[in-house]
């Protein structure tokens, strides 16, 4: 009887082990298929950007380039040296940098101050104001185009980076406020009370006590805002033209205005250049994001 039982248990254990292995493999295969699905376009872009037009015309989409050919990258970045009608990314890339850095910093800082004020310095009507911020996140891009261009025009900053910074700060403020408010609500109010008794004021408490423990949420808002502003095409195309345009507009112009032949290699190189900073931000800040999440948690 006992012997029999032992035998049974062994068999059960064995079959459950086999099951586990099978499930593992199914999981890996499914994950592998998805990973491949997402990585393939990037692979095609990279190899195409290094090919010459000759190679591209042969039609082997997935084949390696015969040699690493950097000419298309040079053309995408510096242009071909035409005196008129030459579209390239260099100027517009720096336009975007000049736009994205102040827009992200200002909207993040202001969102953090908003969130801090809304949670730690409660005042009459604060929940209504928060509701309006929340409502602001639902406003579609298209709805503010016309009023915004009128506003920018009357302020005299249409077709300038400054105008675009203003648009992105205002539009992003609702999101950054929402993020920060939801983070600060979890921080104990007693910390602020203690600091008030210690003699610190509104901004001193913010910069000395609240901001140093805000890393996790600041990383989130920076990633969000950077992606939004850098990848924005609609605001850029509406409120700027010519030399003031950000990179996404330039990329569009470049791809659509090719004069005679489609230069796929140049297009691919340009697209990679335009997408590169976002990739960098995710790769760098993602690490800090996780680190910040674990380091910032102080509970009583």
């Amino acid at each position, binding site marked *: 009887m006992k012997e029999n039982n032992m035998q049974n248990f062994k068999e059960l254990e064995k079959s459950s082990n086999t099951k586990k292995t099978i499930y593992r493999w199914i999981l890996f295969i499914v994950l592998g298929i998805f990973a491949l699905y997402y990585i393939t376009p990037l692979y095609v872009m990279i190899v195409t950007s290094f090919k010459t037009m000759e190679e591209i015309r042969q039609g082997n989409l997935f084949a390696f380039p015969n040699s690493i050919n950097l000419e298309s990258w040079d053309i995408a970045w510096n242009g071909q040296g035409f005196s008129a009608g030459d579209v390239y990314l260099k100027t517009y890339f720096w336009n975007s940098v000049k736009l994205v850095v102040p827009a992200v910093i200002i909207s993040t800082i202001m969102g953090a101050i908003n969130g801090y004020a809304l949670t730690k310095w409660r005042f009459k009507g604060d929940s209504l104001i928060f509701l309006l911020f929340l409502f602001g996140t639902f406003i579609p891009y298209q709805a503010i185009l016309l009023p915004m261009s009128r506003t920018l025009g009357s302020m005299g900053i249409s077709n300038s980076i400054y105008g675009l910074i203003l648009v992105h700060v205002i539009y992003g403020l609702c999101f950054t406020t929402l993020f920060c408010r939801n983070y600060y609500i979890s921080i*104990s109010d*007693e*910390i602020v*009370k*203690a*600091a*008030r*008794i*210690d*003699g*610190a004021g509104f901004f*001193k408490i913010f910069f*000395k*006590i609240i901001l*140093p*423990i805000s890393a996790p949420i600041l990383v989130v808002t920076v990633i969000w805002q950077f992606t939004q502003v850098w990848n924005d095409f609609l605001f850029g195309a509406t409120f700027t033209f010519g030399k003031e345009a950000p990179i996404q507009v330039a990329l569009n112009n470049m791809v659509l205005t090719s004069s005679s032949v489609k230069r796929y290699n140049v297009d691919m190189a340009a697209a990679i250049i335009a997408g590169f900073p976002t990739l960098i931000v995710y790769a760098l800040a993602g690490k800090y994001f996780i680190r910040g999440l674990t380091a*910032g*948690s*102080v509970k*009583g």
Partner: protein
Amino acid sequence: MATLKINKLNKNFGSTEVLKGINLDIKNGDFLVLLGPSGCGKSTLLNTIAGLETSNSGDILIDEHVVNNMEPSDRDIALVFQSYALYPAMTVRKNVTFGLEQRKTPKEKIVSALEEVSNLLQINELLDRKPSQLSGGQRQRVAMGRALVRDPKIFLFDEPLSNLDAKLRVEMRREIKKLHKRLKTTIVYVTHDQTEAMSLGTNIAIMDKGKIQQCDTPKNIYNKPLNKFVADFIGSPSMNLIEGTLNENHFTPKGSADIKIPLGDYNYKEKVTGQKNVYLGIRPEHVYFEKTNSNSFEINLKSELVEYTGHEQIITFNFSEQQFLGKFTSTIDIQMDKDLKLNIDLNQVSLFDKDTQNRI
């Protein structure tokens, strides 16, 4: 070192009255404990004293100066919070000295004050750590250090021990008591733990529903509760309150007309005439098997339930269909479901009017 006076303080949150006409007079060096069930307004009162909340009417005076509209930082008080409220991004050293730095205290003075406090609270080894690297007890010490270092006029404590485990709580309680004995600073201390209140306070103010029910020494609170709420709130298990009538200095419990407890020696607050519906309050520890003094009443009660707690046992009796608890040492054997002869010490009883709930 200061006095604290509170005159007719009122506070509303919208339409709910949280504090209703609070009067308090705290002398220099007093240790006042605000005790009450949760939601009674004790923390709000403390926050109002600190200046973190504003009152709707009434005055707060520190050292005879009205401070109603003063900023918390200008009132020269220190508050120790339940969650300790240490600044997470700062080291212990910075946490303790932050308040002094905000006040532009000279460097040398900060250093000497920090040294004194860290010696007193034994936190020297923790000075370079962050709050997240400290245990609960250590955080508690740092929070106290932050309050002590400024040498304020008044210390305010908002349930500072509730986040500690039972053993540590008793230790820290003793340390706070020692600290008060040594520094003799005026303290206002909020708690919902009656043992903490009884053992720490020179005075206890019992609060309920936004009002102070009684403010007196721990002994008087325990032995001469002013009303039924205080009698019921203080003591564990709480006082037996037997419903009945008082007629010509004799108490008769409801439902048994033949029992007459003589209360001629009771210390009446005012003369009682005629018949009155009352509660007779008897603490469970004032019930004995042997007759301990001449002024006691002998009665036969049926034992129904025993609760053994180690150092004592709590017996539930049937007192003419009302529950009656008795507390005895755990070394004696008591039989259940049996009529037992008991002696009630009549020197220790309290009487409360059934309508007004006040002590007679």
